[in-house]
């Protein structure tokens, strides 16, 4: 009967109650939405690279190096010489090296020149290795391995051919038209920038850049596996390299050695440190969003409270009547608190539904635009605790009308 009284009493003030629910619902959508996206972004972000001990490139800031080696943005300041790669490869500390050569693109997607070491050693998330959904790594000069997102959006299948363009951007003037590549492998989805990357062999990059005069001569060997190791196709330079060490304890030592490398200025960057630095840059925006949603939420709670407060005047006689029926003053307190809780509950349920529906609806769009795969499951411990805080906050703010109701009831019948 208590619950029925609260619900019917709210139903009696439909207009005001609906507006309160609407305001509250919007603020919960913002709060939970921002929290959820932030959480997912952070997770996806820190999962982009793991198992790489150092990233080495031409001297630049750690954030910039991270941006152009791991994320498809930022610009390499300079290239590094092939000799440096070989030097490092011969070092006693090094377990493996992944060379990276950037600069080409395909329909706006980045092309990364590397060796099969990339598929062997690069890992993401919780030390997860890359795996092939279809096909296998490159064996021949003009083989290309593509990320899952590229296969999906450009509808490529194994055996399809494609040409690379020099430079980035969907419309490049300089196409390497005469050297079509054949898709030999499609990677399984990772939820990282790998999904939007095409991988070709380092030698192929070198080969297409050596020009048409050279190409006819080598073309004969292009589909010959041994051709890939041709000495004349050794690159002169690289963009960067991922380094795996024999012992993690040597990380800082090796970093210092590389930073002090005599032959050319190099920078060695710890991916974890660089990731946190990059995330720090985004923290200001993130905090602003959180602050805004918290403020919106507080004002929504105050709105509910003001609505309840303004109706107490009209409910003066109702309170008197309830008292005459034998309702203790605490009953009035509880009744108004329950009304606030019902409004909060309805708003939360509504907001969660709206959020889930829009996350499902926007999933493909966000994936295509930002490369982030948002899960629609917002019932996480994080959002549950937010909702808990929300109920507490609302109960706290509803103290104002509840206490007034209580005092009116106590003061009695005049």
């Amino acid at each position, binding site marked *: *009967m208590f619950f029925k009284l609260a619900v019917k009493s709210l139903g009696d003030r439909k207009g005001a109650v609906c507006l309160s629910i609407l305001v509250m619902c919007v603020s919960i959508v913002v709060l939970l939405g921002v929290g959820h996206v932030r959480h997912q972004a952070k997770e996806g972000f820190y999962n982009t690279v793991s198992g790489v001990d150092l990233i080495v490139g031409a001297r630049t800031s750690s954030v910039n190096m991270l941006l152009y080696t791991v994320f498809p943005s930022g610009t390499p300041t300079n290239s590094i010489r092939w000799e440096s790669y070989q030097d490092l490869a011969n070092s006693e500390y090094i377990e493996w090296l992944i060379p990276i050569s950037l600069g080409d693109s395909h329909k706006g997607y980045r092309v990364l020149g590397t060796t099969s070491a990339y598929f062997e050693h690069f890992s993401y998330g919780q030390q997860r290795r890359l795996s092939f959904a279809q096909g296998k790594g490159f064996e021949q000069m003009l083989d290309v391995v593509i990320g899952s997102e590229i296969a999906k959006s450009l509808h490529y299948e194994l055996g399809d051919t494609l040409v690379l363009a020099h430079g980035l951007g969907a419309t490049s003037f300089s196409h390497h038209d005469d050297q079509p590549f054949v898709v030999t492998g499609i990677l399984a989805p990772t939820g990282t920038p790998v999904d939007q990357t095409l991988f070709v062999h380092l030698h192929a990059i070198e080969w297409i850049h050596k020009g048409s005069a050279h190409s006819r001569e080598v073309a004969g060997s292009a589909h010959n596996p041994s051709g890939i190791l041709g000495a004349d196709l050794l690159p002169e330079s690289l963009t960067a390299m991922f380094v795996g060490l024999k012992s993690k304890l040597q990380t800082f030592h090796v970093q210092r050695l590389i930073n002090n490398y005599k032959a050319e200025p190099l920078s060695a960057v710890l991916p974890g440190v660089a990731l946190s630095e990059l995330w720090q840059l985004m923290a200001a925006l993130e905090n602003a969003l959180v602050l805004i949603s918290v403020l919106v939420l507080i004002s929504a709670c105050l709105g509910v409270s003001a609505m309840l407060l303004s109706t107490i005047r009209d409910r003066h006689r109702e309170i008197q*009547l309830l008292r005459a*029926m034998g309702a203790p*003053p605490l009953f009035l307190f509880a009744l108004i608190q329950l009304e606030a809780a019902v409004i909060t509950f309805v708003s939360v349920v509504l907001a969660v539904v709206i959020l889930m529906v829009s996350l499902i609806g926007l999933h493909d769009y966000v994936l295509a635009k930002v490369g982030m795969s948002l899960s629609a499951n917002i019932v996480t411990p994080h959002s549950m605790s937010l909702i808990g805080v929300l109920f507490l906050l609302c109960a706290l703010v509803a103290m104002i009308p509840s206490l007034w109701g209580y005092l009116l009831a106590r003061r009695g019948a*005049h």
Partner: protein
Amino acid sequence: MAIEITGLKFGYPRQENELVLNIPNWVLGEREGVLIHAPSGAGKSTFLNLLSGLLVAQQGEVRVLGHNLSEMNGYQRDQFRALHIGYVFQQFNLIPYLSAIDNILLANSFSSARQSNPRRNEIPHLLNTLNIARSDWRRPARHLSVGQQQRVAIARALVNKPRFLIADEPTSSLDAENRDRFMSLLMDITTTNDITLVFASHDLSLAPYFKRVESLLDMQTSGAPLDVF
């Protein structure tokens, strides 16, 4: 005795030196019905609220059904009221957005904690006795006519089988026809259920319904309370 008042003095907190009520001695027997006549502003509602325990006398003793109300704490008084006292007002007797049935159930819920057997199945009987058409039982109370509302109010006041009923100008907003219907129903129901009735009104034309008629002014010190019995 249903009600025994001795040495009652009452003033509102902010103007305590100004006594609203000063009743040296007043008694009402069980199953008795009394019409308290008082012009408006004479402290009638204050007197009724003291009887129901919504207000507490600063001085003197109010005993209702043998219990001294000033000796109880607030919660006990609320419970006592829910259990033993029915209340009918001039208007706003029902929560307007609840149906007749829900209003009665609500009144019942305040005492059901103490009663092993809720009287829910008696509600239809009660509503029938009070001439409320079945089609009106589930409509929000605000859609009922004033006459219907006052009759549902009796049902609401009686659902917990109180031994004592307080009526505060219940007929003032009724027309003559509805007033007579209301009065005869009320008198019937209180007599058959052995309920003590304190009925306050400024309308002396209701006097024929009562064996005992008193003026609130006469009950106070300035009057002559002792010659009542």
